[in-house]
């Protein structure tokens, strides 16, 4: 149980490559924080710096108020679960879990008690004397979690722990992880590139891009009020539609190309002619009754998902594709034109040059 304080953390490799910079996050006791971002965004580097596997070149890291920058991984009171499990192949499940405790010099009885408890929690009792190679992927990952749990660390670190598992197992283990977090009440820091995983697990998400933090917030903060175009497009599936345009002459509409314009009904910040990107999530678009919507969509192809249907197409005049998610089973031929509408509070406006969210939230 601990708080974790990342203060302007940064990593520059000897070659001059910067993997992460100016990362500041306050993680409170018992919080489940997910670091998410595309590959190479520096999220794993941050996690490895917290673990002590990577030296910190800038900034300060404290666990429970104590600066730990220069402490060895074993002295930070953390436990880590790796993507490829990193179980010791020659040791049985029990030995794998014991190893860290033995090195800590814990009495045998206490070790045995902790392992029994962890095995019960993770339903590993019958596998304790097997070797890792005799276990399935999901079981191996549970052993890796067991190895972390028995340590009773201040902070649990997870480095894409579910990436090597198949989809069904991933969903199942995700639920187990969430339950585990609730039961232990410990501080979890979790790295993933999968936004669904981030959304479903996190109390708070730290979304990173190119070594910097883009936004920190609850999953719903990120979904409803993305701070930048990057966040908007990263969170949500299928991802948010972006229509590039310019602020119209009346500063209350967006013009696309030469012909079409979309009247928004509220004033836009910024001068007329300023390039902006108008974002709207596929699930927030709906069919306009009587064909009186603001956006026309020329259907190109549809994805039938059962519960809903994603229609892909193009908006005449606007560059770029547009997708809309409609409930239930829908059938449209390619070439059909749908008239779509969207309520104003579901529109997101971004500066096309900087990607920053425009304060059009005066809506």
């Amino acid at each position, binding site marked *: 149980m601990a708080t974790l304080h990342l203060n302007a953390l940064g990593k520059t490799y000897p070659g001059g490559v910067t993997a992460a910079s100016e990362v500041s996050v306050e993680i409170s006791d018992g919080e489940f924080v997910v670091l998410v971002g595309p590959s190479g965004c520096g999220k794993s580097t941050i996690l490895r710096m917290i673990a002590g596997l990577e030296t910190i070149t800038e900034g300060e890291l404290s666990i429970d108020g104590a600066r730990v920058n220069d402490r060895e991984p074993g002295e930070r009171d953390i436990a*880590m679960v*790796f*993507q490829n499990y*990193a179980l*010791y192949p*020659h040791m049985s499940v029990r030995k794998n879990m014991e*190893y*860290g405790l033995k090195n800590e010099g814990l009495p045998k009885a206490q070790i045995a008690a902790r392992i029994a408890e962890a095995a019960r929690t993770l339903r590993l009792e019958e596998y304790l004397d097997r070797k890792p190679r005799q276990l399935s992927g999901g079981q191996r990952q549970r052993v890796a979690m067991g*190895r972390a749990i028995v340590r009773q660390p201040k902070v649990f670190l997870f480095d894409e722990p579910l990436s090597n598992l198949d989809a069904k197992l991933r969903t199942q283990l995700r639920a187990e992880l969430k339950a585990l977090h609730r039961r232990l009440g410990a501080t979890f820091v979790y790295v993933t590139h999968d936004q669904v995983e981030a959304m479903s697990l996190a109390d708070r998400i730290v979304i990173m891009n190119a070594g910097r933090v883009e936004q920190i917030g609850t999953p719903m903060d990120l979904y409803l009020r993305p701070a930048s175009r990057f966040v908007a497009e990263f969170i949500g599936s299928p991802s948010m539609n972006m229509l590039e345009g310019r602020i119209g002459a009346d500063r209350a509409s967006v013009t696309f190309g030469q012909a079409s314009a979309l009247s928004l009904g509220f004033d836009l910040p910024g001068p007329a002619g300023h390039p902006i990107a108008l974002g709207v999530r596929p699930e927030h678009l709906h069919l306009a009754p009587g064909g009186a919507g603001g956006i026309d969509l020329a259907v190109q192809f549809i994805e039938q998902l059962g519960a809903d249907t994603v229609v892909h197409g193009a908006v005449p005049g606007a560059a770029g594709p547009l997708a809309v998610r409609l409930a239930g089973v829908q059938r449209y031929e390619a070439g059909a034109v749908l008239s779509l509408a969207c309520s104003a509070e579901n529109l997101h406006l971004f500066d096309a040059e900087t990607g920053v969210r425009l304060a059009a939230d005066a809506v």
Partner: protein
Amino acid sequence: MVENRPILNILTHAVLILGVLFLCFPVWMALVASTHGAEALSRAPIPLWFGGQGWDNYTQLLSAGLPAAGGVPIGMMMMNSLIMALVITFGKIAISIISAYAIVYFRFPFRMGFFWMIFLTLMLPVEVRILPTFDVVTRLGMLNTYAGLTIPLIASATATFLFRQFFLTIPDELVEAARIDRAGPVRFFIDILLPMSRTNIAALFIILFIYGWNQYLWPLLVTTEEGLYTVVMGIQRMVNSGEALPVWHFVMGTAILGMIPPVVVVVAMQKLFVKGLVESEK
């Protein structure tokens, strides 16, 4: 694949059996010869079946040795060979695995330089550097000692390369997991790396034991005392019996005895070796 070619099967088996017979024949000859007397072996048709002197020949070899060849009992030579082979084997494995550990897991200046220097020793077998090595051993006063017999043969990290390649295949996460589990460098080496290298060590043990056991030139140079003779040298000395009739029955007996330890090592370690190969997984 369905295979139904009886004639080919017979043919391949015939070739196989011929090959086996061809390879085993000299061993058979040695075994048979070691049970005869000297006269039987110097006459024209060499016997192909056991004679009646086996017991006497072997008891004399093991207890008294040959007067003409210094009178050292074979048992003692075998012991010398065994000591030499084992010291060389363990010494080489220990040096190689430790140096590979340093080269793979530690960052120090001229790391690759050291690796290539070690690698170069592969190109310098004992025979090439025999004169300078002999000079060094002489000056250090190591002639006629077990140290002189073994240390110069240990001092080439032949297996470093092999261990290095193996260590490179061990995922970094395992090292990191061990670091988080509070295992320092020594603990990691003993608890994780050594057990994981077990099959490599077994394979090397076989190769190096036979290498050590079969050493001929080097022991011949550094030992002049009979108490340090090895079996391989012993055989050579028996053949060089000067004017007298060559004692083939003793030579063959010694050869048979000298073959036993390597065979035992191969048979014993093969199991571990194969088991390790089948189970290998990281």
